[in-house]
Each structure stands twice: as C-alpha cells, then as structure tokens.
C-alpha cells in the first residue's frame, strides 16, 4: 500500500510541477523519487520489513493490498522499468515539451495500476488496477493526435480493450455471485468444489479477459497494429511493463481462483503453444521492427504461460518473475536502441538499422545482446529464464511442451538474426544522427542489468522465494 501511495503522489507532484512552471525538474525529480521507492520495495521484498520501520497496517485498508513477496518483487520490477521509460521520455517528447508533465504523470499512474494488479488482495482492487493501466495506455497509444496511425492504434486498442474489460468484469461479477465476496483469501478458503457452476464460468471469463491483455493467441489480433501505430515509447511500455504486469496478475489470479474445470490447464497449455509457434512464425515475415517485436512479445507470453505447469508454487512464481525480468530488460534495451535509430520519424522498417554496426557499434552491440537474450542464448539472462521454466515444466513431466518451446525458440532465431544481419552486413544509407545521452544510458543500464541477473539468478529469485 505504501508503495502504491508513494507512486501516486509522485504522479500528482509531476502534474503540480507543471502549474508552478518547473517543467525541467519533472523528469529528474520523478526518477529520483522512483529510485527511492524502488529501494524501499526491494528492501521490503528481501527482509519483509521496511528500512525505517514505518509500515501501514494493511488490515486498515480492508486487505485491499497484500504485500506478498511475489507482489513486492514484481512491483520492484515495474518501478525499475518505469524509471527507464521516464528517463527515455525526456528526449522522446522534446517536440512536445509543454506536455511532458502529462506524459510522465500518465506513466506514473500506469505504474500504480500495474502495482495494484500484482499486490491486490481484492477483486475490486485488481479491476481498478487493470483499468488504470489500460486507460493510461489508451491515452498514450493515441498521444500523437496528428498521426493517423496513432489514432488508429488508440481507437483499436480502446475498443478491443474495453470489450475485454467487459468480459473480465462479467467474470468478476459471476464469481461474486458464487462466493459473495471480492476478497481473494476468502475466495481461496472456500472449498470451490461445492461452489455453483458459474464460479467456473467466471474464472474462464476472467482468463479470457486477461489472455487478451497479454496478447496470447488467439486473442492477439490487436497487438501488431497497436504496437506499430503507437509512438515507439508507448510500444516499449506496452511490450514490457504492461505485458509483464498482465502476465503476473494472470498467474496470481488464476492460481488463486483455481477453477476446478477438467481441461482448463490443457487449454492454457494449448494457448501457450499456439502463442509461441504462431507468434514466432509470423514474426519471421515482418519487416517493421515494432511489429516484429510485437509478435515476438506474443511468443514470449506463450513461454511465460508455461509457468502454469508447476509442482512447487513458489518456485513457479520465482521462475515467472525471472523470465519476466529477463524479457522486460532485454525489451527495454532493444526499444532504447530502436528509439535512438528511428527517433520520432514514425518509420521503423528494418532497413533503418542497416550498417548500425559501423555507424554506432555500441548501440548495435546492445541491440545484438538484447536480441540474443530474447532468443535464449547464454550467457544472457533470457537463456537462464528459459532454462528455469523448462526445468520446472519437465519436473511436472510435460516433455511435449518443452519440445514445442524448443522448436519455437529455433524458429525465433531466424528473425532475431535478420535484424543482426542488417546491422552488420548492410551498408548504411543515411547520415549519422547524434544519439541523446539518455537513450544510450538506458540501453547500457538495462542490458547490463540483463547480463547481471543472468550471472546471479539466485539473488533475483530469492526476492520471490
């Protein structure tokens, strides 16, 4: 709860700063504030207490928020991602300097939504979180009002998202009807074998709503268009922060609801396999980098859904967290490079990356590392993430799922290397443009973190365990 309040206050502060004409201070102050909150969250996740021993009594808030290790770890990841995204936004929005406070504030509110989505103890809180997150994203997707594609993206995302939220809300209502409560611990304590059948229907509807949010096949059709049309920084937000948040809450919610439905897990597995295979296959044919990363994100959602196969629940949580961290950090690094190469020109075709290996070896190296991490090649954390998940799934005895995951990993190498080949073997056609320091800093920092968590996986997983 304290983290949630702190982030919300930061968001309001950045709006107030606009009134007092402190526009220049917004980004630095927000980043420093977020770093402080991050430290607080990580400390709390590690030791279970806060540094100064002041803590809000969560029972006073009717258990709306539960500070579990899982929630705190994911919150820390979200805060870290937001720090990167806010740092990027200063340069990205330099043509819209007067609106900078809006952009930063919306990102912070989006963060509160994401945090609420993983720390909720109550269905109402969960729904509030997902709506705050989604509405912030609708606004950000359409934040270039003069660009037709951005308008299209915002509209599409809004219509589809609102529809999914409706399904989700219907599911929550059915569950309330079956159990008479929104409180997650109470729902978990009820023996749901004796619950009426609409409990199961509600669970399935919630699952469908969330599968839409994480863009799993066959609910993925919005993702490529929205990713392509949105401003690049918004795409970065969607494919890292929003996707990981939706995935984390999907896992938490479905494992808490635990619908006693024969074939439910099998269906989830089929969706996971479809997402991996379809996402990677279609990504092979893309020439737009944002679209390609959208399909790659669909495939990664599929991998993360393998976490539902578990024998040991905390272990599965830790593996999911590790995968999410590895994927999101690689994603941020990749998007930081995409931003510095394509900037604001609204054209992210692969040929923009031609000859980057010569013109800017550092950025080319970072993008290469990010893509290698997503492809799952050691020593990057993406490899260990896949390895831990495969280990867990084999533990459960689902060899066939692992085989599918391996095959789709092999497919994915094809398109990740398409980009790498363009950077190193083609000649650059355009003159070199200076890259803002913030972009390079974020790219270096996130890829360094990606490699570091690959070297010390036990620390990252101890945040959850």
């Amino acid at each position, binding site marked *: 709860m304290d983290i949630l309040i702190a982030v919300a206050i930061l968001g309001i502060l950045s709006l107030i700063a606009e009134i007092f004409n402190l526009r220049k201070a917004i980004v630095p102050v927000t980043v420093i504030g977020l770093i402080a909150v991050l430290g607080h969250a990580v400390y709390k996740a590690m030791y279970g207490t806060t540094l100064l021993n002041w803590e809000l009594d969560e029972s006073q808030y009717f258990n709306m928020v539960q500070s579990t290790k899982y929630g705190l770890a994911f919150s820390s990841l979200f805060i870290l991602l937001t720090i990167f995204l806010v740092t990027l936004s200063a340069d990205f929005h330099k043509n819209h300097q007067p609106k900078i406070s809006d952009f930063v504030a919306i990102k912070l509110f989006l963060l509160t939504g994401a945090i609420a989505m993983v720390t909720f103890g109550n269905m109402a809180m969960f729904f509030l979180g997902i709506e705050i997150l989604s509405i912030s994203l609708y606004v950000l997707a359409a934040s270039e009002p003069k660009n037709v594609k951005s308008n299209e993206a915002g509209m599409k995302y809004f219509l589809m998202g609102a529809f999914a939220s409706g399904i989700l809300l219907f599911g929550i209502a059915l569950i309330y009807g079956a159990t008479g409560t929104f409180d997650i611990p109470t729902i978990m304590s009820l023996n749901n074998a004796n619950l009426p059948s609409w409990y199961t229907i509600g669970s399935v509807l919630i699952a469908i709503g969330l599968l839409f949010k994480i863009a799993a096949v066959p609910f993925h059709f919005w993702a490529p268009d929205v990713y392509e049309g949105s401003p690049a920084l918004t795409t970065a937000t969607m494919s890292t922060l929003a996707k990981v948040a939706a995935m984390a809450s999907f896992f938490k919610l479905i494992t808490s609801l635990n619908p006693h439905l024969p074939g439910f897990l099998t269906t989830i597995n089929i969706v996971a396999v479809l997402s991996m295979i379809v996402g990677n296959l279609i990504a092979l044919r893309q020439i737009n980098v944002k679209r390609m990363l959208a399909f790659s994100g669909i495939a990664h959602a599929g991998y993360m859904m393998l976490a539902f196969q578990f024998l040991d629940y905390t272990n599965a949580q830790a593996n999911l967290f590790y995968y999410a961290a590895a994927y999101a950090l690689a994603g941020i690094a990749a998007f930081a490079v995409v931003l510095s190469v394509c900037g604001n020109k609204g054209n992210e075709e692969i040929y923009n990356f031609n000859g980057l290996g010569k013109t800017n070896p550092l950025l080319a190296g970072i993008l290469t590392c990010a893509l290698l991490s997503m492809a799952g090649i050691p020593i990057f954390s993406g490899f260990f993430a896949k*390895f*831990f998940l*495969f280990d867990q799934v084999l*533990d459960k005895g689902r060899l066939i799922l692992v085989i599918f995951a391996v095959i789709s990993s*092999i497919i994915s190498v094809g398109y990740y*290397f398409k980009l790498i080949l363009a950077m190193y073997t083609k000649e650059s056609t355009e003159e070199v443009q200076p890259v803002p320091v913030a972009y390079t800093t974020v790219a270096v920092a996130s890829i360094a973190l990606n490699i570091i968590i690959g070297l010390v996986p*036990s620390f990252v997983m101890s945040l959850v365990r």
Partner: protein
Amino acid sequence: MDVSFILVILLFGAGATWFVGDKLAKTAALIFSAAALAATLYVIYRYNLGQKVSFIYLWNQSPRIFLGFQADGLSLTMTLLTTALTPIIVLSSFGNLFPKSRAFYALILFMAFAMVGTFLSVDGLIYYVFWELSLIPIYFIALIWGNGDAEERKKAVIKFFIYTFAGSLFMLVAFVYLYQKTGSFLNLHLYKAMLSAKEQTWIFAAFFLAYAIKTPIIPFHTWQANVYQKAPAAGTMLLSGIMLKMALYSIIRWQLPITPWAANEYKYIVIGLCLAGVIYGSVLALKQTDLKKLLAYSSLAHVGLIAAGVYTLTLDGLRGAVLQMVAHGFVVVGLFFAAEVINRRFNTGEITQMGGIRVQSPKFTSMFMILVLASVALPGTFNFVGEFEVLYSLAQANIWLAVVGGTTIILGAFYMLRMFQHVMLGEKNEKFFADVTVTEGAVFVIILAVLLFFGLYPKPITEFVTPELEKVLVFINRFNK
C-alpha cells in the same frame, strides 16, 4: 593457480585486446594467447605433480548448478590443444589487414575462452553455456570478415548458426531431463544415473543430434563446406581445428558415459554413418576445384574416422581418437593456413588458377608438402599414430569397418597429392609468388615441429590421456558385463 586462471586470462585478454585499439590489437592478442598457453603448461605441470588444479564453486542453489572446472588428462589435453592453437591462429592472421581488427582479435580470444570452458566444465549446464557461447564469436567472425559474396555468406553463416543452435537445444532438454532424474548436473552424478533403455535411447539421440551437427557427421554436414569456404582463414581454423573437437570431446565426456547402453546398442548404426562420411567426404574432395572446399571435405572424411573410433567404445578407439583430434587440429590449421598463404598472393581459391608455385618458393613448397603428407597419415607424422590406432580399433570391432575406414588413407593420398600437384607443381606461374614471410614461416615451423615430434614420440600424450580414458570406459561398460 588452478584451471580457472586460464579462462580468466583469455577473457581478460579479449577485453584488453578490444580496449588497446586497432593498432596494438594483434600484439595484445598474441601476448594474451601465449600467456594462456603458458598458464596451461604450468597447470599441466602442477597436475603432473599431483597438486589440486580443479576449481569448483556452488553458483546457484536451486536448481543446483556448480561453476566447476575439472582438470584431468583428457580435458587438459583439449585445453592445451586450444591454447596452443590460439596463438598460432592469431599469428597466422598477422599477414591480413582486417578492418576493425581489435574486434576481430578480441573475438578470437573470446572464442578460445568459450572453447576452453567447454572442455573444462564438469557441470552440464555450465558446459552448455560455454558450448553455446562459442557460437557467437565464430558467427560474427565468419559474417563480418569472411570472403566471397556477402549475400551468400550470410545465408551460409545463418544456416550454420540455426543448425547448431537447434541441435544444442535438444541437448539442453536432455540435460534438464537428466537433472530431474538425478538432481544434479555434475558429470559424475549423471554417469551414475540409472536410466531405462527407452530413456537412454532418447537422451543418446538428443546428444547425438547436437554432436553430429557440430562434428559434422553425415547427414548433418551440409552447413560445413560453405561455411569453411566463406569464413576468413582464422575462422576456418577455429572451426575445423578446435570447435569440431568440442563435439568429439563431448561424445567421450558426456554422451557415452551417460547413455552407455544406447551407445552399445546403436554403435554399428552410428559407426556406419561416420564411415559413410569418410567415403562421402573423400569422394567429394576428389571433385572440388576450390582449395578451401577440398580441405573442408577432406576434414569431413578425417573427422568421420575419428568419430567412428570414438563410437567403437574401446580404449584403442578412444585413445586413437584423442590423438587424432590433436593431430588433426594442428594439420588442418596448417593446411588452411597454406591455402590462405596462396590466397594472399594469388587472391583466388580456384585450384585451376594455381600451379607453378614450387619454382618460385621452395621453402613454402617443402613445408606444404610435409603438411600434405602428415594429413594423409604418413608414418612418422603424428596423424599416423592416431589414425593407425583408430583403424586398429575398428578392425577389432569388425574387419570390414577397418577396410572401409582405411579408404580414407588411400583416397586421401590420392586427392591430396593430386591437389598438391595442381597447386604447386608445373610450369612457372605467370603471377609472382613471394616465398613465405617470417611470421608465416614461424607458423608452419611450429605446426610441423609439433606434428613430427609427437609422430616420433607420442608417449607423453598417450600416457597423459590413458588413465582418464580408462575411467570413462569403466562408466561406459557398466551395463555391458
């Protein structure tokens, strides 16, 4: 000082080479690779005195992963092969002017780091990490500094990458499966896993896929000739001299002791595939008009024979294979370097455009001649020792296998000597051919010295590897009483 020190030197050397800049890069690379060689020799010296040179550290609690580097006769031999060939390969590139040479030399050292890690690791997962890691530098070396048409090169290199990556991923699945069974990735624990026949068959197949692609064994060889031809000389040397030995070593270290029942059951099928590669490689080598491609196919034939020796599951076969691995490593590096020396002067790989070199450069001709003779396993060279022992082990299994395997010597002599005739002899070539420079000469002399010394006196290496191979054989034979 333990074995991890070699790795540290190579990794640090790769970083330092990158930072000293383009001008000093090659010197730095040579110094660090020579330092790694010195460290390896010192470690071997200490190992022979019976001191502890292994290194182990619990890296991750759950799943249990050890950062462990085991020094024994087998792994140290392969490490020595790597660290001895790396300075030679660095030295052999001195004659080329590479753009961005600091990245080039740094990648060579990084590659050596990954390969040494593969040879030394005792933990399956760390082994896999190093195994995959070695792919990245060679991919970039072949892609950026390779020769020939860029589009074709790209296709060849990406095919190589996806092929090997695909194979290794199934190996990873096998490792994870074994971890579920035994709760450990350490090789000694995996050796003791009690696996059913069905499990062994699948794990054997998963390992085989990874190793057959990397070695390469027919029918997984299609990436090889193109990549060898397109890669720069140093890249080809790394691939053929050391990297494919990773696969052969891994068969001895991981595949056979973990799945001995399956190895014994399918031994003749696998040996058949290996020997098919011998014939196939030899026949194709006869047909080649490109010097590097010819050497690539001849390498396919020789490696097929080594793999056949390994899969006989006898001490002679394993030992012959290890000896032949070392010998082939040196000879193939020498041969590809000779091709590069000609390429530097004539700027072509076409055999038809060569000829008449002998008149102009007697020194180069005689050194190339010895290399060719070593490659066809003339008695007195190192290759003879290994090849003879492998053929002997095949004869023990079945005399016809030895007969088929022996064709590699006959056909090899035929195509290698014919190649030598077309490339070197004949009327004086119109193009000028300068005799070898000092650095080029140094490379040849070192390689020839090694080949001749161990050809006449192989005892140090045989004695060094035999105890370890005997230990491995105990595990291989645990199901076959």
